[in-house]
């Protein structure tokens, strides 16, 4: 039989582990609070509909940090509710009707996911607050690819849409899938003919492009910067309206004669039916954040492109995006 001391020790060891685990599990607990006029806003919570470490998570946590550092808001809680490409979080946001303290970090990916996962909750039901940042997409090929310009590539693609495999780092409905599909549509290729190969994020896509497994890759330009610098990958075109500073010599699609502007953007929405006062608090807070030095520093450090619009302007943008994505995905039989 074990002595009492031994059992105590075991109990202690188990308790230590349990306690440390418990810290992890409860670190995101609710902290209620109420807003007060004038001083820093309190009790704001931002839901991230993806896992920690992803793009939305980084954006939301950076925003929360800037809000704290610039004393715009205190006690901003960021919590994760991942699932179904963000639609689990979207459903929760829609269910929290009237909750003026909650906002959801989202972006183009959630728009697509709300259709591919046949969600009953849609982004048009939410209260749009602000679009924060955007990233231009890039059309890339390995260094020894026969395609020298986007024109070469499009000509070959038109001739044999099914034979040209395009790789992207998101599943169907995600930004990297929407980009080549919209590109195909703009150059007169039936999107249904496009041979899109989905990879699990940039980590899997990059070797597929480097190893020449796909004819070309489509993703955010940030995924490829270092490889471009090292001469392993060539960027044929960026998809933003203006050229990207980090890729000065690369033409845009527009300047190459293709009528398409496509960016992967991230923004923040609130539940439906929140009061005008609450909406104003959020928009004020986000506007002040956008004007802060700290936010500008973060944009530079992380290579994000500022794309700040708020309120009704963002609402119009969101509606347009929603419709374009819905049309495309319906045509592909995904919505």
């Amino acid at each position: 039989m074990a002595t009492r001391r031994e059992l105590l020790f075991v109990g202690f060891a188990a308790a230590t582990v349990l306690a440390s685990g418990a810290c992890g599990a409860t670190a995101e607990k609710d902290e209620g609070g109420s807003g007060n006029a004038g001083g820093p806003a309190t009790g704001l919570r931002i839901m991230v509909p993806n896992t920690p470490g992803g793009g939305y998570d980084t954006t939301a946590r950076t925003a929360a940090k800037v809000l704290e550092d610039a004393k715009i808001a205190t006690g901003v809680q960021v919590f994760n509710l991942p699932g179904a490409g963000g639609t689990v979080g979207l459903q929760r946001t829609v269910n929290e009707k009237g909750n003026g303290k909650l906002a959801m970090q989202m972006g183009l990916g959630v728009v697509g996911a709300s259709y591919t996962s046949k969600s009953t909750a849609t982004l048009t039901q939410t209260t749009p607050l602000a679009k924060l940042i955007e990233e231009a997409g890039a059309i890339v090929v390995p260094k020894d690819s026969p395609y020298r310009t986007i024109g070469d590539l499009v000509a070959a693609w038109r001739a044999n849409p099914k034979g040209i495999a395009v790789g992207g780092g998101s599943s169907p409905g995600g930004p990297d899938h929407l980009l080549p599909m919209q590109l195909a549509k703009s150059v007169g290729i039936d999107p249904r003919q496009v041979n899109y190969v989905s990879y699990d994020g940039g980590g899997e896509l990059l070797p597929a492009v480097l190893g020449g497994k796909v004819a070309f890759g489509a993703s955010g330009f940030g995924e490829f910067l270092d490889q471009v610098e090292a001469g392993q990958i060539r960027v044929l075109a960026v998809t933003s309206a203006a050229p990207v500073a980090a890729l000065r010599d690369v033409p845009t699609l527009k300047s190459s004669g293709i009528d398409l502007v496509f960016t992967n953007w991230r923004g923040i929405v609130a539940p439906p039916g929140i009061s005008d006062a609450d909406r104003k608090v959020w928009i004020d807070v986000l506007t002040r954040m956008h004007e802060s030095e700290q936010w500008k520093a973060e944009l530079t450090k992380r290579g994000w492109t500022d794309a700040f619009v708020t309120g009704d302007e963002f609402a119009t943008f969101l509606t347009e995006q929603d419709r374009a994505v819905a049309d495309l995905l319906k045509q592909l039989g995904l919505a």
Partner: protein
Amino acid sequence: MDNLGNLLDGFANVLTPMNLLIALLGVTIGTAVGVLPGIGPAMTVALLLPVTYGMEPAQAFIMFAGIFYGGMYGGSTTSILLNTPGESSSVITAIEGNRMAKAGRAAQALATAAIGSFVAGTIATLLLVVVTPPVVRFAVSLGAPDYFALMLLSFVAVTAVLGASRVRGFAALLIGLVIGTIGIDSVSGQQRLTLGVPQLADGIDVVVVAVGVFAVGEALWIAAHLRRRAAEVIPVGRPWMGRQDWQRSWKPWLRGTAYGFPFGALPAGGAEIPTFLSYATEKKLTKHPEEFGRGAIEGVAGPEAANNASAAGTLVPMLAIGLPTNATAAVMLAAFQQYGIQPGPLLFERESGLVWTLIASLFVGNLLLLVLNLPLAPAWARLLRIPRPYLYAGILFFASMGAYAVNAQPFDLFLLLVLGLLGFAMRRFGLPILPLIVGVVLGSRAELQGRRALQLSGGELTGLIGGWVSWTVYAVILVMLFWPLLGRFVIRPVRERLVNP
């Protein structure tokens, strides 16, 4: 040896009292999160990112490296003691490890896991220093057909774990394959078997499956039999590994390392497949086949070495070309960016000091893990002497908390219970559990790679055959399949002729 000099500089940076303390903190946190199912190293590093804003980059990475290795190791503890794998890569450990624990050899199982992790981690980190460029070139050259071939190899290899009854083994495998197909299909974007439940759209996490089927299933089983059978007293064995344990462990450690390191470096490799392959290999090569399924130390030593070696392998493409091959590496890359460091092919040149400090901290973290965990092994082993009702209540608590922690959704608790009932039913009807886990892990990946290969070739079947890697792997598969025939018609006659000329 330029690298050696750099590495020594790295050690000089790590071996300050403050950095050692941070490394110790890292491995402690890592072990703790490894122990708890559901909270993985990736999530921990992500949640700790804001905390490290105030630290020097080198210190933050020392801590992350500790968490990463600690997490890989920590998963084994609960696998062995409580039959509750903390990470998907320690599922295999639960099979033999928990049997060993029930036979009073928990201390030995924990020790071989700890020492094996240390050995594998150290060798793999050394490999990281020496062979990075060729490994990366190799990893990038692999495509979907090669991965598909590797998945097929894993499938063939794990038929070795189907158990005594092939029919039951295959039934369990099929259940696993079905569970693996749940979710949005990443090729076509269509939902499969989600029954309109949005929480199922991402599929079921393999940790939730493993914890449900192993831990909750077992708890239900014990609860159902608690009154009928007198409690068996788990004997208390010797606290340390004996001479025979060492003899039986060192080869599996090395073989596990050989499996784990390259798989970790592959963009679609992962830590689970090398543990499967290692287990299958040890089962084949052991001199004590009768012990497999009843607690064979080789079945713990090999897979545990494999998962730690794969953790080091993961860092190869991450440091060399900025390629994250698993979630933890992806979060660590995000951390690089937080310090304004662009990871990628130029990282070694631009941030040489930081990289070598990170590598040195891996060695140190590894050593700290051993120092921290080895003396604890006999103490942990006594955990099993807690009276069973309390012990299993604790297990259920752990399992539920872990399942809940993954997504913070009550639905996952319901899922856990359903899977627990499945585990209970499987025990009742004698279905082995390991093939089910294998099906969940491998099935969806093999399908994805196979379809990707066919997509890339435009639907031509020849697309399934890629470079020399896939040829080699298919050759190995053929040899494995026809080995019994070869044995009967070629090898045995030759041997007999040699013995009786």
